[in-house]
């Protein structure tokens, strides 16, 4: 057996063991211990996954430029691995209707969401692939809101992933998150023209719909994408959240989940409604600016930092940069984890 193949199999075994045995046990321990151990695992990944570490370091440098010192850049990369490990514990704490995790998450700005819903047109929560964002949406569901997410479960679209792997991620990741949401995810994809109307249907029922706006547009959607200032450069993003708000009258509120320095406590910050008056690109630029500011402040929270291909699709870096070859790996599934049997393989179709 080749050395590379053996290393890959060991990585698979480690991930399966972590998600199916270690993380569920850590979620039963006192939070201080559980998240501490998750961070140790993140530190171990940081040391052992040299290719991914190099890719992340390169992307941090390419995207954030000179804003971070080399030391801070390394700390960001290490933190990215830690946050990835912590997310597994978050997911496992969603048992018992999310109460174990809810005890660790402070929802700030709840009154803004309640006021928005009082108007009867639903609410659009504008978010990003930032921290344990998926858990954040489910936390809102656990706290009494009817939440539906517009977003793809990444493992369902990862090229080359086996059926066994898809079922694995369905069981350990999707199922616990989905249980606390009101409707199945509305999953945009080429040819699915009903997506926005389905979201509008949820909004008409005065429900909460979440949208992560930092996704690279699919090829078929590029004509409708807009360029907005983002992380000191410009990013090509889809302004669908604003269009949806204009068509339905639903307010747009920013919603981002921040992990505190102790790694176990988190704050789900909900903003007041973002004005959507003026042109679509202008209004959307306000949302993108909020996301950009959050990433600039806590770059390790941003999952796309692991994906050179996606950063290029967003227009934040050029294709053919000097990023290490392994950096063509993407955020894959879930929250930065590689497909079990295909480390480095892009999750988005070529």
């Amino acid at each position, binding site marked *: 057996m080749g050395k590379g193949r053996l290393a890959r199999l060991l990585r698979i075994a480690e991930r399966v063991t972590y998600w199916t045995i270690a993380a569920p046990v850590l979620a039963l321990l006192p939070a201080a211990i559980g998240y501490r151990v998750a961070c140790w695992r993140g530190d171990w990944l940081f040391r052992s996954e040299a290719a991914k570490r190099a890719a992340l370091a390169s992307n941090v440098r390419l995207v954030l430029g000179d804003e971070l010192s080399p030391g801070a850049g390394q700390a960001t990369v290490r933190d990215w691995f830690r946050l990835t490990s912590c997310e597994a514990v978050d997911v496992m704490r969603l048992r018992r209707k999310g109460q174990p995790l809810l005890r660790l998450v402070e929802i700030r700005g709840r009154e803004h969401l309640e006021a928005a819903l009082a108007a009867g047109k639903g609410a659009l929560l504008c978010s990003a692939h930032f921290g344990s964002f998926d858990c954040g949406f489910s936390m809102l569901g656990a706290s009494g809101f009817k939440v539906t997410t517009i977003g793809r479960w990444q493992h369902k679209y990862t090229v080359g992933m086996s059926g066994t792997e898809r079922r694995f991620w369905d069981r350990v990741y999707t199922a616990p998150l989905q249980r606390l949401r009101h409707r199945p995810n509305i999953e945009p994809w080429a040819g699915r*023209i009903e997506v*926005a*109307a389905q979201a509008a249907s949820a909004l008409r029922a005065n429900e909460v719909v979440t949208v992560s706006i930092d996704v690279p547009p699919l090829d078929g959607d590029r004509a*409708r994408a807009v360029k907005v200032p983002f992380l000191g450069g410009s990013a090509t993003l889809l302004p669908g959240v604003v269009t949806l708000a204009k068509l339905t009258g639903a307010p747009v509120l920013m919603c981002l989940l921040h992990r505190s320095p102790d790694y176990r406590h988190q704050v789900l910050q909900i903003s007041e409604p973002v004005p959507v008056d003026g042109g679509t690109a202008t209004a959307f630029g306000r949302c993108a600016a909020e996301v950009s500011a959050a990433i600039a402040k806590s770059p390790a929270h941003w999952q796309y930092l692991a994906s050179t291909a996606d950063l290029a699709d967003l227009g934040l870096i050029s294709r053919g940069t000097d990023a290490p070859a392994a950096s063509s790996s993407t955020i894959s599934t879930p929250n930065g984890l590689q497909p079990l049997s295909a480390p480095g393989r892009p999750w988005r179709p070529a």
Partner: protein
Amino acid sequence: METIINDYISRELVQDAALLPLSDDTSLLDSGILDSLSLLQLVVFLEERFGITVGDTDLLPQNFASVQTICAYLRAREPVAHG
């Protein structure tokens, strides 16, 4: 009805002028005129203009494939307020 819908789509949703004038049997999906958000825009228009509610189960590509199929879908519903 065809004229009303054709006019609306031509005016509000067609972004490529080369697709105009729009014929009633032009595929709105294959030509890229309709995507997820423009379909929602069209649905909102149809609901307001013809006094109907388009349910989730009616959001099928075959119902919105062309001006003709949209009109067939609307005619299959009662009541439809013309004019």
